[in-house]
């Protein structure tokens, strides 16, 4: 075969070189604790082995037929004369992991308005204004955004309405849903709509519309009443009450499976992991996403502040995860979403479309944002950063730029190329590279550089600590392992 004979050595070459025993397949490793290492192969399968065994494998000192030899062979870390299909199998697994990349942009965020009735301190974008003309999306922009959306090759298209408070411009939500649905009669994509809303402007008429078009609702719930209202101020100080009333109506009219909730973690949340989880359980949710503190809106310009905040958040996360595992042990099926995403990367052959756990970064590949004024951003965080004066991740404008122009722009391709974990310093030989990703916007916001020095990076520290923690739980705590495995999709 041409490719094999010119660029690559053929299979005979590999077979001949086996005469002396076994050969190594590509793998990375990382220290787990003082005596153990995690080793990961090219397809992301992992093993925990002792330091002695790791050095013995690489130094060709393993005894063929020994238990560790057989395990390493069956998990594709080494191969010998008997494993002729190992390379094909590994290639297949690698391809499966990479498959989501080919699907390209699935999630399209439409910012219908920047106006909002809340004034949450962590939000950089919302405006307390009655001026619809200044901050609302127009039909002209919406038409362009719909055109752009349907140029994505993805078969699964999700349109999510964001704000400000998206429902303050419900007319635009309606317009986009109706137009996109019409358009989809010829496109035949798997089209889905989500409204992200604080639920305060929700009316029965809106819910009837949601029912007709099978629209999902995603709301914000930050925790118990006091914390929620403190995080999310609005006139009347009744944000929590409004969410409760709204959630009840959504469940009654659309069904419980049509409602999801997201929490934002603030400094005040960090001491309240249990009460926040209890609130989610009490409100009938079966999962929670313990989200990291956002660097946007905090005065987080120094590296040490980033590290400090990450330490605090990790304490919060571990306390929360311990508690959730405990609840599961008592018979309640309840998932921590970020943990489940990582476990699925670790334990299944499937990749993810979660933006921050992808290589290259999922910016614009997994999700893209159309701002009310037609500006196109690579992610919601890019839009936040732009509001803080940094437009580095603005990819163009719907009124001026074409799909090809935006998707092939230096503003997008530059960061994508630079954020392939396989080529980033420290990530390139990290044992967790297969499970991790990159967040150029975060690193730009905290270090002024899209790649960032991972030795200082809160993103790296967060992922490395969580991954070590999860592998230790899987290895050393059989009860926790059973719970974690129940979160993995089969």
């Amino acid at each position, binding site marked *: 075969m041409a*490719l094999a004979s010119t660029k*690559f050595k053929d299979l005979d070459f590999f077979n001949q070189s086996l005469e002396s025993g076994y050969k190594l397949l*590509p793998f990375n490793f990382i220290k787990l604790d003082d005596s153990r290492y995690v080793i990961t192969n090219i397809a992301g399968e992992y093993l925990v082995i002792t330091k002695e065994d790791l050095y013995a494998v690489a130094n060709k000192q393993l005894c063929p037929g020994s238990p560790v030899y057989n395990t390493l062979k069956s998990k594709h870390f080494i191969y010998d004369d008997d494993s002729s299909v190992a390379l094909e199998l590994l290639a297949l697994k690698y391809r499966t992991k990479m498959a989501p990349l080919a699907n390209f942009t699935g999630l399209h965020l439409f910012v219908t308005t920047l106006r909002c009735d809340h004034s949450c301190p962590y939000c950089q974008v919302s405006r307390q204004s009655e001026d619809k003309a200044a901050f609302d999306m127009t039909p002209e922009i919406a038409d362009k955004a719909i055109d752009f959306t349907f140029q994505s090759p993805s078969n699964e298209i999700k349109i999510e309405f964001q704000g400000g408070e998206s429902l303050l411009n419900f007319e635009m939500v309606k317009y986009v849903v109706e137009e996109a649905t019409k358009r989809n009669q010829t496109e035949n994509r798997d089209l889905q709509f989500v409204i992200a809303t604080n639920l305060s402007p929700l009316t029965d008429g809106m819910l009837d519309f949601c029912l007709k078009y099978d629209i999902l609702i995603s709301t914000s719930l930050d925790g118990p009443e006091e914390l929620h209202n403190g995080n999310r101020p609005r006139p009347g100080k009744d944000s929590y009450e409004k969410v409760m009333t709204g959630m009840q109506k959504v469940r009654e009219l659309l069904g419980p499976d049509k409602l999801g909730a997201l929490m934002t973690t603030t400094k005040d949340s960090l001491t309240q992991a249990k009460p926040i989880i209890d609130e989610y359980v009490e409100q009938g949710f079966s999962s929670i996403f313990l989200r990291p503190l956002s660097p946007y809106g905090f005065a987080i310009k120094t590296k040490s502040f980033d590290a400090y905040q990450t330490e605090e958040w990790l304490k919060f996360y571990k306390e929360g995860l311990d508690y959730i595992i405990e609840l599961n042990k008592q018979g309640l099926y309840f998932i921590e979403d970020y943990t489940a995403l990582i476990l699925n990367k670790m334990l299944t052959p499937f990749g993810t479309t979660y933006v921050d756990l992808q290589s290259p970064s999922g910016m614009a590949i997994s999700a893209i944002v159309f701002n009310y004024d037609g500006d196109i951003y690579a992610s919601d965080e890019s839009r936040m950063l732009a509001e803080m004066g940094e437009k580095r991740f603005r990819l163009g404008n719907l009124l001026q730029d074409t799909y090809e122009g935006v998707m092939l722009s230096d503003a997008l391709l530059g960061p994508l190329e630079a954020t392939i974990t396989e080529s980033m310093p420290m990530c390139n030989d990290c044992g967790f590279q297969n499970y991790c990703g990159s967040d150029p916007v975060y690193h730009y916001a905290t270090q002024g550089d899209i790649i960032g020095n991972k030795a200082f990076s809160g993103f790296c520290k967060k992922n490395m600590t969580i991954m070590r923690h999860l592998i230790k739980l899987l290895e050393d705590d059989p009860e926790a392992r059973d719970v974690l495995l129940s979160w993995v999709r089969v």
Partner: protein
Amino acid sequence: MTKESTTPLVKNDDGSLIILFPKSVYSLDAVKKASYKFTDSCSFLINEQNTAYEVLCKPTADIPSKALDELVNSFCNEVLDQDLRERIASETHAVRSLILAQAFSKTSLLEG
């Protein structure tokens, strides 16, 4: 040109350290990559001598002596690990290319 040091580890009065890595055992890349990983706690200056790489390591904050010893141990182990990574990468370079080519092609490279 400064005089070549011969002691593998020297602790200076100003809190900095000099660590020697014999060239016959370690590669420059391994020393550099390990240093990069520790840039959150130290600054580094790497010099090439005739037979060794000399690493001048300055902690960026005051570190108690026991913690400093631990840091040095971890750093030296990391250089060893980096060296091992390099060996694995160079031994598996060709087979890695084959697997990737196979993964991204529609046909089987291993048949026919």
